[in-house]
């Protein structure tokens, strides 16, 4: 299994969480999508959002980060930091708090650049158009005229998994052999049997969490 996983801490930019022809399990709330990466590219740092001016001792509206949305069949891995001195609360999707502890939703402020220079702790995954949302909280006694967010990461295009490597073909053949009496399995396509193998942890698989999860959920 390659050493590819989210939240990998290292000096510098994040590594990609999967390479070409590797399989991933994309978790979105309670759904899991088993996919194969067939293309990836790095996305340089860019300004993805500006929540606008935030009045003194007040907060912005909850704003969708539409610029972090991905196209169909694609997921993104992002690390991000705020530019302006506000506290930012992330929701992913809009109704679920990210960085949620039992008693506190942990906000992010620009000090993250000093305390976590590689932004490991900010890493999020986004599946298709299931983008996060954000609130900026201004604790200052004066208006802050912009609430800007910058992000850096990777874009991954995915397809339905089909057995292509010798190892995958071998495992698919093994499952067919083990469950030769199972009519359901014998009618399955090789791709569907490969899904069984992935769900049974018989093959390398990288889990990608593309949403938060509500407490107690």
């Amino acid at each position, binding site marked *: 299994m390659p050493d590819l996983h989210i939240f990998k801490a290292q000096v510098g930019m994040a590594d990609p969480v999967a390479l070409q022809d590797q399989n991933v399990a994309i978790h979105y709330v309670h759904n899991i999508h088993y996919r194969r990466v067939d293309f990836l590219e790095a996305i340089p740092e*860019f300004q993805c*959002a*500006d929540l606008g001016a935030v009045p003194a001792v007040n907060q912005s509206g909850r704003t969708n980060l539409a610029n972090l949305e991905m196209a169909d069949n694609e997921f993104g891995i992002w690390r991000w930091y705020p530019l302006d001195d506000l506290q930012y609360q992330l929701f992913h999707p809009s109704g679920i708090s990210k960085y949620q502890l039992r008693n506190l939703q942990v906000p992010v402020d*620009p000090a993250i*650049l000093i305390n976590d220079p590689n932004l490991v702790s900010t890493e999020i995954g986004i599946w298709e158009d299931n983008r996060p949302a954000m609130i900026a909280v201004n604790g200052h006694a004066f208006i802050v*005229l*912009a609430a*800007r967010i910058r992000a850096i990461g990777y874009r991954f295009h995915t397809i339905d998994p089909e057995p292509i490597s010798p190892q995958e073909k071998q495992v698919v053949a093994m499952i067919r052999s083990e469950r030769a009496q199972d009519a359901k399995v014998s009618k399955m396509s090789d791709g569907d049997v490969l899904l069984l193998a992935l769900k049974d942890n018989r093959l390398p698989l990288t889990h990608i969490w593309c949403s938060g999860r509500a407490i107690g959920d």
Partner: protein
Amino acid sequence: MISIREKTGVRLAAPVINLAAAGVANAVNIFTLPILAGVLVGTKSAIIKKVSMYNNVAGTTQVLIGTGVAGTFVALLPALDSFNGLNDNYGDDELPEAEAYADITAYPVALGAGTSIDIVIEILIRG
């Protein structure tokens, strides 16, 4: 120690601008924020890091730097002295990290007839 803001911007110098008319009503742009709709997301901002002036006023005066003109002028810094016939340089150590979210303007408080002040600011562009 490099400030957090220093890590998140690009430094550049604005062009040399000649302040040839005194008073807030005559404040002129000394730096225009980049605007390119459809490419830039949100606003860019500018932090003044250095101010360099040459006084050709035949008298000591002050220069105000801020945003806006006339009734909309809002100072970013207190009045900076500009001494008769001298260069006036204000650097990182002296200046607070005042951040402008609009074009930066400046004006001298007083000018002698036919005199002016040249000004250049170095800024940290963010966003």
